[in-house]
């Protein structure tokens, strides 16, 4: 496909992914509990959007070393090469792909966009400020970040073995969207 169409599809996929994430997040507080049917449909849309996004990115000319951090939530779902660099464990992606996991009390209570923003910044070896940069972001602003803010010089450690989260070594591609409704 042409570069323009690929870009359009890419943008559309990102937008749908953003909308889906915010819906998943909102459904956690819905009265009556998480709806399995709705969560399933949301995860299917997200999977399609992610697949389309991946395939349209692959069909684009190779871009610069750093994808635009502006679309942070979506970038986390991008190519394997970038994901392997993510030092932090995967819980950031979990709210996005595990509609039922998020329903469990005590599960990762994290906002999506804050996490992605921080991880983007984590990728550079020199730890920069964890404050979100004021870039135009596709991620909804209202999603709060619930992870503790690290002071400069602090490090975030990988989750201990045996935690219910995905192990630090697992790449994001392995964290398939099939882990949607694990323990409902």
């Amino acid at each position: 496909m042409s570069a323009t169409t690929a870009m359009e599809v890419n943008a559309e996929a990102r937008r749908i992914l953003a909308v889906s994430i915010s819906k998943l997040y909102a459904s956690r507080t819905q009265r009556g509990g998480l709806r399995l049917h709705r969560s399933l449909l949301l995860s299917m849309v997200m999977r399609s959007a992610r697949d389309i996004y991946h395939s349209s990115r692959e069909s684009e000319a190779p871009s610069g070393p750093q994808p635009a951090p502006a679309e942070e939530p979506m970038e986390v779902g991008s190519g394997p090469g970038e994901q392997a660099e993510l030092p932090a464990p995967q819980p950031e992606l979990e709210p996005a792909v595990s509609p039922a996991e998020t329903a469990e009390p005590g599960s990762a209570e994290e906002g999506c966009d804050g996490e992605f923003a921080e991880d983007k910044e984590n990728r550079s070896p020199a730890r920069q400020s964890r404050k979100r940069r004021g870039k135009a972001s596709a991620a909804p602003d209202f999603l709060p970040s619930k992870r503790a803010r690290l002071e400069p010089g602090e490090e975030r450690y990988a989750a201990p073995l045996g935690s219910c989260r995905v192990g630090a070594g697992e790449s994001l591609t392995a964290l398939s969207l099939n882990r949607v409704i694990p323990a409902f």
Partner: protein
Amino acid sequence: INGPGGDMQWCFSQVKGAIDDDVAEADIISTVEFNHTGELLATGDKGGRVVIFQQEIENKSQPQFRSEYNVYSTFQSHEPEFDYLKSLEIEEKINKIRWLPQKNAAQFLLSTNDKTIKLWKISERDKRPEGYNLKEEDGRYKDPNTITSLRVPVLIPMDLMVEASPRRVFANAHTYHINSISVNSDNETYLSADDLRINLWHLEITDRSFNIVDIKPANMEELTEVITAAEFHPHQCNTFVYSSSKGTIRLCDMRASALCDKHSKLFEEPEDPSNRSFFSEIISSISDVKFSHNGRYMMTRDYLSVKIWDLNMENRPVETYQVHEYLRSKLCSLYENDCIFDKFECCWNGNDSVVMTGSYNNFFRMFDRGHRRDVTLEASRENSKPMQVLKPRKVCAGGKRKKDEISVDSLDFNKKILHTAWHPQDNIIAVATTNNLYIFQDKVN
């Protein structure tokens, strides 16, 4: 249906509910159901209440005016509950009401919320006893020493009182949210379906039920579809169907095995590849399935269409009707505003010749199968003068909008008709808007 030489002309008859534009959430109607004779019409709402309307005796002096439906009984069926183990609130919203066929003077119905089904007895009391020998009027027992004669109480007429009492509570059998209940033709059993399981109950027994369908995968990560609706066959007590979020319908025979995980028939239409989009899966999810009265067909409703299936043909429906095809290009917006998740129901008329379903902007659609005609009508306060004939509506999908047409972008997506019901014998329909119930009838009869 309306049209040149059309058979039916629909007229406004009544509207029930508050006129207020500010809708209280508890008043949102969540289910509508006629009983088997059509004399009673039940509605359930988000606040857990059931309101039953009764058709009054025909007005003989004005025969063209059909009998009216007036409130017969109102009761609180379900209350909000809290599941402490899962820290979840259980909504009191009534998902479905199903009437039992009448066996004696009393009426019975099943009503269900997300987790619990209840059997309600609605009975009339029009006499009361008077003249007790041993008791005062207020119920206190008399001093035995003051009693000098014997008299037997007599029953005297009183103003009609309609009482609703819960006779059975069928609880704790569903982990997931109940979406359907269906009474079997044997009048002894019924089924209840949630996202992953279907249970068979006996109406008399509340402490156990039989699981007859279980599609929960061993590993929930492999979940790809859920059950969206289920119904017993109207005549064959061993047969039921259930629909899925993938657009398939499975017909099961309870004689084949105790657990009906293997279907007897699988109804599925191959997807049109040209219509593929991000939202193909959502719009193919079936929101309702209904057998025809004669038991030969079933109808399914998905987001954009209504399909009629011949039970003898599994590979495709025999008829497909587009409800609002003009929405296909708007799916992304409908996803954003959540409308794409709306669950529309559908219904048959008494002789299975016409089917009806709801849409947006308080429009509802009827499809005449025999005459291959369809019509769009609107339920609105503006068209609610007594016996006012409903004018057919038309949505302009694109291009030049004709006079009286409404463009897609002007449609009010907050005004949705999800629940409709058709009188089992006559041409009387009940159409629920958000918080109002409209009753329309055919002028001719």
